[in-house]
């Protein structure tokens, strides 16, 4: 449940970020206070999450690109690369990931 604070976000990390955040904060989800709107990228830097560890973020259940603005009260999750392929398309990761140089992209040759 969301904690009742006007400055709090409810934060999760998936795949390896699950263990990372649990180790860092001792719980999942993490209830984190922010001073105001902040981009997902900036938040990830504050949390010391590597850029390569983020393909997209979820904000309130919607898939967003990593620099999407997060507001107090939001439910946020960082998702690393590793989600099976069809769902990356079906859930809109591909569409939100077009300009993200740090993450793997469709059409990228090996």
């Amino acid at each position: 449940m969301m904690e009742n604070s006007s400055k709090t976000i409810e934060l999760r990390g998936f795949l390896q970020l699950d263990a990372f955040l649990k180790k860092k904060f001792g719980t999942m989800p993490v209830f984190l206070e922010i001073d105001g709107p902040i981009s997902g990228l900036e938040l990830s830097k504050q949390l010391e999450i590597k850029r390569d560890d983020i393909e997209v973020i979820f904000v309130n259940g919607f898939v967003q690109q990593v620099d999407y603005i997060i507001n107090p009260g939001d439910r946020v999750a960082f998702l690393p690369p590793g989600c099976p392929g069809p769902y990356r398309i079906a859930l809109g990761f591909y569409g939100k990931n077009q300009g993200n140089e740090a993450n793997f992209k469709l059409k990228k040759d090996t």
Partner: protein
Amino acid sequence: MQKFIRIDMATLKHEITDVPEKYAGLGGRALTSSFVNDEVIPTCHALGKNNKIIFAPGLLSGTSAPNSGRMSVGAKSPLTGTIKESNTGGSSSQMLAKMGIKAFVIEGKPSDDKFYVIKLDMNGVTIEPAPAEILGGCGNYDAIRILGGKYGSHVGIAIIGPAGEHRLPSANISFKDPEGNIRSAGRGGLGAVLGSKNVKAIIIDETGASKVPVADPEAFAAASKVFAKALLDHPVAGQGLALYGTDVLVNIINEAGGLPANNFTGGRIDYNDNFSGETLNATITERGGDGKVSHGCHKGCVIRCSQWYPDKQGKYITSGFEYETIWGLGADAGIKDFDTIAYIDRAMDDVGVDSIEVAVAVATAMEGGLIPWGDGEKVLEIVKDMANPTPLARIIAGGTSIVGKVCGLYRVPVVKDQAIPAYDPRAIKGIGLTYATTTMGADHTAGYCITGNILKVGADIDPLKKEGQIEYARAMQIGTAAIDSTGMCLFVYFGIADSPAGYQALIDMINAQYGLSLTSDDLDELGKNVLRVERDFNKRAGFTNSHDRLPEFMEYEPIAPHNVVWDFSPEEIDEVMKF
């Protein structure tokens, strides 16, 4: 020269011939579906003498190509009444290919009640009475051990559990994996078809078989190397499936609001951490013992999405512990204890039932008042009862549609009487279109493969909106039908979708093996032809576009947290299969 084997259970005789010319260039699903459409009377009863069941390795099975050990099984489904192709890992597909067996067919029906074991080896086919100790309630784990003792630990085994002997609509066919555990051709009740032919098990002994012939070994080896690199370099193999299994999807789909909960009345739960892929990994790692975070279901698998889940003492409980099973028991049926879910998964493997169909049937039965919500111990008891089925066990193993009718429910999550798995169509619309239109009844694996066509529309796809979804569902089903014909695990597409070189390497391997010059367009056309054949069968079985629909409740019951309904019109849905 490859062999085509027919076994007539009415006479207990068999025939080994050259492969009919029309099937020579086909493998896997393309072969099984073409055969079923050619030879099975579409209106026949699926458990009657006129149904036939066919087993076929894929085009690349038995070679050194990574992840090419899948086997297709085809027949008319007793669950859906449609054509059915169900495929599996395990050792049997590679063995059959090395033995030069293109396919084997079991037809007819004995006049008595005896069960038989069929043995395929390099000397031909033998049919003998099944040992009494593996009949009448013996679970698959024990039966595989007993058959291994009799025929040797090296043999491949396909077997029906007690549920198949009782011809229950959710009965599957289990296949021994390299360690003697169980993989399954799960969906559509094909275990009941094998049971109706009184075939308890099929033994495959490759002793004396040679390597699969490859027309251009050097080209094959080069393409195989590129293909393996494309898989291994991809994050989904290295970071996703190998560490967290398919269960990695629990948290992701939950966060997207598409995790069906409490018989499809919600799209998100708050106890997902109990059984997420991340928890799966942490639990196996912590418990040690027999536990393995990563495991391949057949030789040559480099993705290794399977795992061995141990109990608190480190003793093996189950393997191939898939997202859809965990979702069904955990989120849809509200069973919150991971170990209980694991024991139910093992019990389902042991009695031989589809763990998706039964999990969804359980949740539907909970809504119908037959089982208390979230009561895992009661569910475990009912599943174990399927070995010598009580009336309640028969109802649950009858599948979700039957449970819905027995309980007088309108909220029955099925398409063509097959349970909808793990991804709510209201919140993930593209998958909903696949559920509606696939020839198989609701099946997430019918639309799994990303092709070049998808990339053209992928940038516009929003899971909650209609734009691009028709093209998505169409292209995914065409691509899947093609890959199901190669013997490749569908998960290879997770890797090669991002790698044109990897995709080309897949085609190059087929070309090198058979001395062909196929292009990606040819593979695309193969997929289209498979779907045309399957739709032709279904049409002659009495299915029309009106059967390509999701359950009506999804049109007027919004699902939280996004509060969306299924809003595609019949005309829009019918566009998916226009190609």
